[in-house]
């Protein structure tokens, strides 16, 4: 559950919007779509990253305005890749890998509730997740195959990121550009108009990778896969230090 929390906090921090995080046991039921976390602004409640991005955009803050159509398509595609592979792999590891389920997940999921509710809700969630895995064709996958998929996804992200600080390195700062054009100066120093800014894709990737790297699991293979890619590690550290202001990074080196 803390995964989406991190993605959303990162995104809102990147937009320079102040947030206050509150924990509630009935959060899932307060949310309009049943998913946590959600944001409560004035008298509006919005859940899930997609709608929150739209909501924030409608209020005038957007991280992806400077992207052209092709870049926007790429960004959406990579966000789906992360959802498709990383999120499903994390769900699989949490709920379909017997070792993790027995030792960690059942206890953690059922902890806010008294017996026997904790067992019932946990098993119900597990049944739901297994049904979903079967529907999308992951029902017969072994742990090794899932880890291989994660590796492929990380490789794709690493290759896309390359040596840049964020996934979409340069986008035109419309404001600076407009001011300059209106002042009728020449088009020298064109680099001046491009800002290096993160987008919602960076927030999403950071959220997932941070969770993988810092969550305690029975086996460390998942985090090992991510640690193989040094540029992804550097990316996570950079965002953590910049937006979450932690002096020493909590992402451990192998």
């Amino acid at each position, binding site marked *: 559950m803390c995964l989406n929390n991190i993605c959303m906090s990162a995104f809102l921090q990147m937009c320079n919007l102040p947030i206050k995080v509150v924990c509630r046991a009935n959060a899932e039921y307060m949310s309009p*779509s*049943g*998913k946590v976390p959600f944001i409560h602004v004035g008298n509006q409640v919005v859940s899930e990253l997609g709608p929150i991005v739209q909501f924030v955009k409608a209020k005038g803050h957007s991280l992806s305005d400077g992207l052209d*159509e*092709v870049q*926007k*398509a*790429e960004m*959406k*595609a*990579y966000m*789906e*890749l992360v*959802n*498709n*592979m990383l999120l499903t792999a994390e769900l699989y590891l949490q709920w379909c890998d017997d070792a993790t389920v027995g030792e960690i997940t059942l206890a953690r999921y059922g902890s806010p509730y008294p017996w026997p509710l904790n067992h019932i809700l946990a098993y119900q969630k597990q049944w*739901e997740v297994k*049904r*979903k895995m079967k*529907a*999308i*064709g992951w029902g017969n996958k072994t742990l090794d195959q899932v880890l291989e998929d994660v590796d*492929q*996804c990380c*490789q*794709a*992200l690493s*290759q*896309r990121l*390359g040596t840049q600080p964020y996934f979409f390195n340069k986008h035109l700062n419309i404001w600076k550009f407009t001011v300059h054009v209106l002042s009728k100066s020449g088009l020298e120093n064109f680099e001046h108009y491009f800002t290096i800014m993160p987008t919602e894709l960076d927030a999403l990737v950071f959220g997932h990778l941070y969770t993988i790297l810092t969550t305690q699991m029975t086996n460390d293979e998942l985090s090992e896969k991510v640690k193989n890619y040094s540029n992804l590690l550097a990316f996570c550290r950079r965002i953590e230090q910049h937006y979450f202001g932690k002096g020493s990074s909590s992402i451990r080196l192998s």
Partner: protein
Amino acid sequence: MAAPLELSCWGGGWGLPSVHSDSLVVMAYAKFSGAPLKVNVIDNTWRGSRGDVPVLTTEDNTISQPAKILNFLRKQKYNADYELSAKQGADTLAYIALLEEKLLPAVLHTFWVESDNYFTVTKPWFASRMPFPLSLILPGRMSKGALNRILLTRGEPPLYHLREVEARIYRDAKECLNLLSNRLGTSQFFFGDMPSTLDAYVFGFLAPLYKVRFPKVQLQEHLKQLSNLCRFCDDILNSYFRLSLGGISPAGQETVDANLQKLTQLVNKESNLIEKMDDNLRQSPQLPPRKLPTLKLTPAEEESNSLQRLSP
């Protein structure tokens, strides 16, 4: 040549080599990478499995699911992505994920869940390719599987209600089509001039949507407005699947081959005859020219008959 690779898949119609997305992806990839595939179309005999179609059978093993089949073909050195850079390879994965998340639910809905479409087009088509009594059970099961997939991946707990989800999946699918159209632009394929894995996937998902005639067509109408995607599908059909344009399924390909063989034999026979007659004429005394007649009629008749049989 490598050991024979056999692919079992659903057959074609409406100008397509196959109406099943996954089968089409594999067939397109095989054409792009030059893999020699022997395609066995599933018909209404009891041969072949209908479980996880498409299925690739080699000497040693069977592989199902398009992603695994494509991986296997790549390992056998049939690689359509040879020319791509690392970043383009990463983009391929991302766009395939986009297709599966945003477009697939709506395609499944159009084919298997929308009642008008399912009962008038999809069910009869698939049922005609399954032996009784499978034809009564399997289409229903496939439809239920599609519905499940849509609800479980796009529906919201605890109420999995289809109506709430329908509007969203079609909106997502239209957005996905727009994104693909923007990305393709005016190029022939997604990464330059040579088709790659991404082109195979996009073709596999779009072509059935584009070509199959449905009563309820909202997504199809949207696709037809994106002319570069339509051009993309037509180009691939014309360049790589030309023989199948007349609706001849790959199994019917064998009868076409047999007819071609017969025709070649007849033409050879006829040309031999003509040579002989020519010789006779030269050797015979000079007589006024007369029509070469009756001798030619019989082989020509047979020839024109077999030509008529070939034309669709």
